[in-house]
């Protein structure tokens, strides 16, 4: 058996809300290889964000295990960098200070004087050169997410966890951010790629970015299917969307998502 960077086995998570416990994830198992980009998609309420908060170390599972490099996960860790949908950055620190703070937390070998230089370098990489002295509230939502990505990358963690990082961004900027992330992650082929778990409800986003897509079904969240994305890298959205393969693949994913919803419409619960 190949050793995965992240190995999730029979993960079960219960949520307690209004004193009632409900099953958010049930027996979820999948692995994420080293340097692999894996997306988790599913309708809202399928537990995909819950899954990520377990990986972040913010939420303890009721059953099953999560292993990173063969070691069981307990709590948060400096080998994982996180980008949230909101508030990844501290609003009282400038963009640059935010990045420096991240570096300080994860890279103890980096000297204080070097942090500023690294921060500038990553700000430039995400297209925010000259915005280092701005506070997050002075930036647009898209720029805030760019800065959050810059911090996560500057922290140079082996694993990146991204929880719907682009879903609050307008359509045009979302496309730009997806391409930015794609380019930064694919890199120049020299550096080792990071292991990414990316949660989204956007099918096109998942296809463009991922090596592998985990489709979750809701109530309780279980793995419906794990699909390998067959398109070669480096990818370009413009090229990709023109092909018939893309349309076919997209339809297949859509039907995986909608089958699930259709089944539930037949039951006593209507979600649409």
């Amino acid at each position: 058996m190949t050793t995965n960077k992240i190995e999730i086995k029979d993960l079960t998570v219960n949520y307690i809300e209004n004193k009632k416990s409900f099953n958010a994830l049930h027996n979820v198992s999948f692995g994420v290889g080293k340097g692999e980009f894996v997306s988790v998609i599913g309708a809202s309420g399928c537990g995909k964000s819950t899954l990520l908060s377990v990986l972040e170390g913010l939420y303890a599972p009721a059953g099953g295990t999560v292993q990173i490099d063969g070691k069981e996960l307990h709590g948060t860790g400096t080998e994982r960098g996180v980008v949230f949908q909101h508030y990844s950055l501290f609003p009282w620190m400038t963009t640059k200070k935010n990045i420096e703070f991240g570096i300080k937390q994860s890279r103890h070998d980096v000297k204080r004087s070097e942090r500023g230089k690294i921060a500038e370098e990553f700000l430039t990489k995400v297209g925010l050169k000259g915005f280092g002295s701005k506070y997050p509230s002075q930036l647009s939502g898209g720029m805030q997410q760019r800065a959050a990505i810059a911090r996560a990358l500057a922290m140079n963690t082996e694993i990146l966890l991204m929880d719907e990082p682009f879903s609050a961004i307008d359509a045009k900027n979302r496309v730009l951010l997806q391409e930015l992330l794609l380019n930064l992650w694919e890199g120049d082929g020299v550096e080792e790629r990071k292991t990414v778990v990316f949660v989204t409800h956007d099918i096109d986003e998942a296809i463009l970015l991922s090596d592998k897509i985990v489709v979750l079904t809701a109530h309780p969240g279980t793995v419906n299917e794990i699909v390998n994305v067959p398109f070669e890298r480096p990818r370009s959205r413009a090229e990709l969307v023109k092909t018939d393969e893309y349309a076919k693949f997209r339809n297949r994913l859509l039907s995986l998502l909608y089958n699930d919803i259709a089944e539930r419409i037949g039951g006593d619960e209507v979600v649409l």
Partner: protein
Amino acid sequence: MTIKKRYLRIVHILFIAFLFIQLLPDKAAYPVYTSLLIKFAVGAEIVVLIGSALVKKEGSLALLVDIVGFLFVFLAVWSLVTAKYNYLNPQLFPAPGKIVHQFVEDRDKIWTNVKSSLLTIIKGFLLATAIAVPLGLFIGWSARIGSAATYITKFFSSIPPIVYIPYGIALLPTFKSVSVFVIFLATFWPVFAGTMSGVLGVDKKIIDSAKVLNVGKPEMLFRVILPASLHQIFLGCNQGLSVSFILLTSAEMIAAKDGMGYYVKYYSDFGDYTRTITGLLVIGSVVIGVTFLFNKLQSSLLRWKR
């Protein structure tokens, strides 16, 4: 700003009108120190001119100009009804020049009293915030005691701090220490309550965001929770500060041997209303000055908020 916007202001017309009014003959039967009043007004005009040349923000300049303009109108009317036409009882309503004269004459005494009041406030206030903020952070952060602490704080902050005075006098050796003690209490509870409600209200997303960065406990408290609750802390501080001034001046009127409240009370007992009014105006200026500086500090520390 254009030159026109900087220097072409109605305040200068008001200044000239004020000067003309001062040329009218004095009818009052007591010295009204018109030349001193004119010097004071010229000083204010110079402040406006320097401000016009240096102040960068249009809004702040407009504010300065409007305030001084109001001052000119006020002084002009005041001198008309007193020094110039003698409409008002000179005992209760001394002419403005007389107040300026009194201020100049008493400046050492006034300064000593202001210093004494301010020192008492600063001691009590700093001591209270230095204890209330860290304590509020710790207790607010340990969420379980947090809710019980909220009720206990509500109980103590509902006691008007002035009722501690008699007990404080029994408890402590000097009037000074009683004043510091009462100001401490007046500041402690609102700041403590503000800090706790700030901590309890910090967005969970911010805390998660800090947790995934693996921040240690001291950093969590002082680099994350503290700035996140700073707004609420300042609300408490502002409340504490304004109550402190009210308390201190009232306490000084009851029992002190110095301080601004003492100055006002002492001279009004002798019917010296010139000094009483001088004292009132000084207290007003000191409170405004301290509040202004404190708000500056607040907006500079909270500049990251929209």
